[in-house]
């Protein structure tokens, strides 16, 4: 693994009401010797889990790749990345644990490398 990601939600909260604002901070540290990523993305989303195919709904999305970052400049040139996020949660869907279906909410950071596996870091929270 060539990256460490810290997802911090303000107030250390893991429960939110619909319509509330979720905010926090993302800290990304790339380990020396690793490959520089091609994409670094932050999203706040709901995702289904269960017997059915997985569906997602994204309510906040942003690329965290710094403008100065380049494939040719190496991982050292990227340095640690600190970014704050804030998004208003929608009315639905609420978190749900059913028989065939579950609905989860996450703050998710995706680190993608060219022609390689992708690393997904998640911080779940409950929305009611």
């Amino acid at each position, binding site marked *: 693994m060539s990256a460490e990601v810290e997802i911090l939600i303000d107030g*250390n909260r893991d429960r939110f*009401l619909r319509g509330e604002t979720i905010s926090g901070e993302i800290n990304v540290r790339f380990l020396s010797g690793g490959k520089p990523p091609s994409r670094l993305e932050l999203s706040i989303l709901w995702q289904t889990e269960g017997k059915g195919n997985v569906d997602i709904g*994204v309510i906040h*999305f942003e690329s965290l790749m710094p403008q100065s970052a380049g494939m040719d400049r190496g991982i050292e040139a990227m340095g640690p990345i600190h970014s704050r996020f804030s998004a208003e949660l929608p009315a639905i869907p609420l978190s749900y644990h059913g*028989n065939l279906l579950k609905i989860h909410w996450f703050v998710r*950071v995706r680190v993608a490398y060219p022609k390689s596996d*992708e690393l997904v870091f998640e911080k779940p929270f*409950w929305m009611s």
Partner: protein
Amino acid sequence: MTHPGSPISPARVEKPAKMGCVVAFLMIFILVGAAIAGYFTYENLKAALFFKEIPCRIISSDVAGSESHRPHIVYEYEFNGTTHRSDRYSPVKFSASRKWAKKISRSYRPGSTQTCFVNPNEPTEAVLVTAEFWSFGFPLVFGLFFAGIPGFILFAMVRGKNMSPEASESRGPGFRVAARRSMGIPLIGRGAGMELEKDLPLPRLKFHQGSQLPVRLSVAVTRLGSVIGTLIFALFWNGIVSIFVYQVVQSWLKGRGGVFEIFLTLFLIPFVLVGLFAIGLFFYTLFKVRTKDVMMEISKEPLRGGEPFRIYFHQPGPVRFTQLQVRLICEEVVQYTRGTDTFTDRAIARELLLLEDKDPTAATHHEISKTLEAAIPQDAMHSFKSKSNELLWKLRFSMAIPGRPDVEHDFAFRVLPSPPSFVPVHAETNIPA
């Protein structure tokens, strides 16, 4: 689940989708389409731009071909003091209908003088037309179409491969909700009710103006639709099977009772049984239709968790029943893919019995009309609909009729969340004894 205070989030590794085989498959179509379009374009442009226009004399003119037809016109022309003969009509051979070929051959009467186009570098090569739609435009359009559709799919795949699921989905309804919110448009309320399902993951349902209560609910699956569906299946299945049954019967009648006939007869038995089952299913659904439609109305739609509402239903008689029930149901409906097939599974997440009437005598009722008071449970999960997952709220009307199949109709409606609280949402079944 991660502990809320855990500083470093654990990583999950996702492998990007491999699409080498699909790309190779699509590339075959793209290359063939491009080759067709390229070849036809090259031959036609060569003739149109470089061939020299000279007079020629038509020797004979008729139609060639048996399945598809083309004009066969023989003509003579003189180039650089030498007489040449050719029967080539267009730069690329093209066949079509007899009518088309005949129309062209008639316009080149034998003995008449016409214009032909000769390749100055190869005087034996000549054509009567250079860039006609049938020989130029049509193959070009066909080739581009043949290459274009797989090319578009490949483009979308490559574009999608460079995009995460989140980035791709960030163009969807979730973002439209954010846009509406930023413009101050209410997300849930009477004013926004008609557009709820466009912006939020809610089922799309049809409603009508009610007669006794404001909203008339639509039945989830029309009975007429199921009758027509089973009829089409029964006709299709039995139509095909009957061809083979006829052949076998003919063989037996002609006295051919060999091993092959015995094998074919045994082989056909399960197919005939399925056909008989299909006919039985058709009559079963037809008997159900004979019971007149139930009308179901509610006082408000969408409803909220904890909200009381009224239900009115009407069953036009005459009808006999031994048991009549109205249930409030929340059902999980999920679709999942195994290989190339898609399956649907259902589970009742919540069920409340609102009405149960029993009549062991099965007396004839001229009609049944009732108004009920009900309430959506306070901690109920709201309606939800995404591509493959759904939480469907509905009223189920069921009736046991002596001597006939039971009648069961589902009427769907939407439930929105109750005012915010931290009540955890769980599935449960709650049927009073």
